[in-house]
Structure formats: structure tokens, C-alpha cells
């Protein structure tokens, strides 16, 4: 628990600097910063999955291996970005991980896989959308959440943003 001590005349003394604090609050919880953090989080999850890692609970771990039969099926197929026949990184065509979307409100952001249509590996139309595929693969290979060290990366980016803005406003 962090205790805050407000010194008289300090930048936290709202009676003196109310306007500046309001400005900081607006910028600290703005849609712009939430959008930036959502993008960073999306990037972090994308790269982690492509490296072959998922997250169960709040712990990062290797994604469950592919079955020998499925590896054989993947051989010679035009796999998506960073896909190889033997690597378990949720990449067959690559469409699911390209379908990241985010919803940003004033002080939150949500990350999800969009319900966009997809093509099969042979080029035909797939009856499942990307969100459905994500839901399906998540059962055995959960990936759409953050481990504690990953959350720390995003919080640290946010913290640095607040410090930069506060210095600009109060100095």
C-alpha cells in the first residue's frame, strides 16, 4: 500500500494547482494513452505467441506441442508469418493473430480477436470466424492474457507516460 503525503504548496495541493492536476488527470486517463497501451499489449501478446509462449493464469509457459499427425499435415503448406511445420505458435495461415482488435474507453482498454471471416489454408472460405478459432485454440493453448512480468511492462510504460506528462505540466 502506497501512502500519499500532500505537502502544502506542492503540486498535489489541489487548492493551488487544481487546474494542472485536472489537466494531468485528463492526459493520464485519455483515450490516446489507452490506445497506445492497447497497441503495446497487442504487440507483446503477438510476439510472445509467435515465439511459442502462452499464458495460463498469470504465468507464461511454452504452448502445448503439436501432435505428430498435425505436424505432418502442416508440412509443405504456405504457413503464416513465423510459422514452421513443427513449431507450436498458433500459426497455420496466420489470420487469427492478424485479427487483433481493441476497444478503448476513457480509462480502460480491452483486447480481443475480431469476428472477421477467414480463408482456409487451401484458399476456400472457412465456416469459422477468427474469434471462434481463438476461442477454440484457447482451450488447450491459452494465450490472450498477460503474465505478471508482462503486466509490469505495460504498467511501467504507463507510469513513464504519467511522469513525463506530470513533469511537463508542473515544471
Amino acid at each position: 500500500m502506497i501512502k500519499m503525503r500532500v505537502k502544502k504548496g506542492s503540486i498535489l495541493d489541489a487548492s493551488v494547482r487544481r487546474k494542472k492536476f485536472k489537466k494531468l488527470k485528463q492526459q493520464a486517463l485519455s483515450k490516446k494513452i489507452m490506445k497506445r497501451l492497447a497497441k503495446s499489449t497487442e504487440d507483446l501478446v503477438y510476439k510472445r505467441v509467435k515465439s511459442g509462449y502462452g499464458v495460463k493464469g498469470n504465468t507464461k509457459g511454452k504452448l502445448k506441442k503439436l501432435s505428430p499427425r498435425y505436424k505432418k499435415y502442416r508440412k509443405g503448406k504456405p504457413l503464416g508469418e513465423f510459422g514452421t511445420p513443427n513449431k507450436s505458435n498458433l500459426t497455420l495461415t496466420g489470420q487469427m493473430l492478424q485479427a487483433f482488435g481493441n476497444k478503448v474507453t476513457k480509462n480502460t482498454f480491452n483486447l480481443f480477436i475480431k469476428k472477421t471471416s477467414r480463408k482456409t489454408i487451401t484458399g476456400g472460405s472457412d465456416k469459422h470466424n477468427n474469434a471462434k478459432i481463438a476461442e477454440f485454440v484457447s482451450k488447450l493453448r491459452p494465450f490472450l492474457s498477460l503474465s505478471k512480468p508482462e503486466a509490469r511492462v505495460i504498467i511501467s510504460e504507463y507510469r513513464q507516460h504519467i511522469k513525463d506528462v506530470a513533469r511537463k505540466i508542473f515544471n
Partner: protein
Amino acid sequence: MAQRTKKGTRKLRLTVDLARIFNRVMTNKSPDVRRALRSKLTDVSVKRAFALNAIELITKRTLSNKDVNGESFAKYSKSYKKSAEFKIYGKSATKVNLKLTGEMLASMVSKPKAGTSIVLEFIDADNNNKAHGHTFGGGVKNSLPIRDFFNLTSDEENELLTDILKESSTEEDVNALADFFTLALDDLL
């Protein structure tokens, strides 16, 4: 320079005594001013501001490809440059900044310590071990070169403390505000 745990110690720690820096930088102040400022060195918010600004400084310096002595880091090995992870994370072959996932640098924390000292360390074992490897080198067949990032030079220490103790400083409050806005996110950790 700050006092760092020696090679062979598993836990990497950086201990900085603010009183030692104070004696170095406040030589031209009157005894009254010195006495008043010195009493601030045990203040929790002053120590926290120093520690968090030190973490910010180490992070920014490291991301700008410089080690503690201002030298460029040792180059990446050929095998690392050829690895899939290197490509996935879009790393530059020439820009060595100790950042792949960013987790190691983001896991630096300050721990409270009595008196006028502060301690910096890594919050979890994995990132402590990574940082330890960079700091002292080693690895299989000594393949990991020393990339000394986790320390502060005397000049850096002086600047950090002077910034916080100057009359118009807002650094204590800037850090308190950052704490305030990220407090709700502690649930994620």
C-alpha cells in the same frame, strides 16, 4: 559508484547511500541549509523518488545502447542474430539495448531500507538471473559477454540527488502521482 552485490552472489542488488552522495554534492551550502537538507534523506518519499528516478535513468540509458560507463554494449552473437526470437521481436543487429520482451528492465524495483540508503533489485528470480548474466557475463562456455547496465556512476548519483533536493523540485510529487495513477493496476501483479 553505488554498491553492487559481488559476482557469485545469486541475488543482484544495488545499494545506494544517499548520505554519502549528499556529502559529495552539498559542499558549498551553509551549515544550516546542509542540516535542513540532510534531515530529508531519511524521508520515505525522498528515498522513493531517488530510487524510482534511478530505475528510470538505468532504463533510459540501457535502451539508448549505453552501459554504465557510457560505452556501447558488446555486440549480439551471430547465433542470437539468426534466432527466430530475434526476428519475431524485430531486433536491430546493431542496436544492443538488452530489450527483447522488456520484462527484465520493467522488473527493477526499489525495496525500503532503514536510514539513508535505498536498495534496487529485480522482483522475480527469472529476471534477476537474466540481469545477473548480463552484469557478470558467463553462460554456457562463457558465451555471454559482460553488459554492465545495473549500476550508477557517481555523476549520475549526484545529478539524481541534486534534482530531488533542489528547492523547486517536483520529483517527489511526480513519483507520487505516478504511484497514484498506477495504484489500481497493482491487482494485475
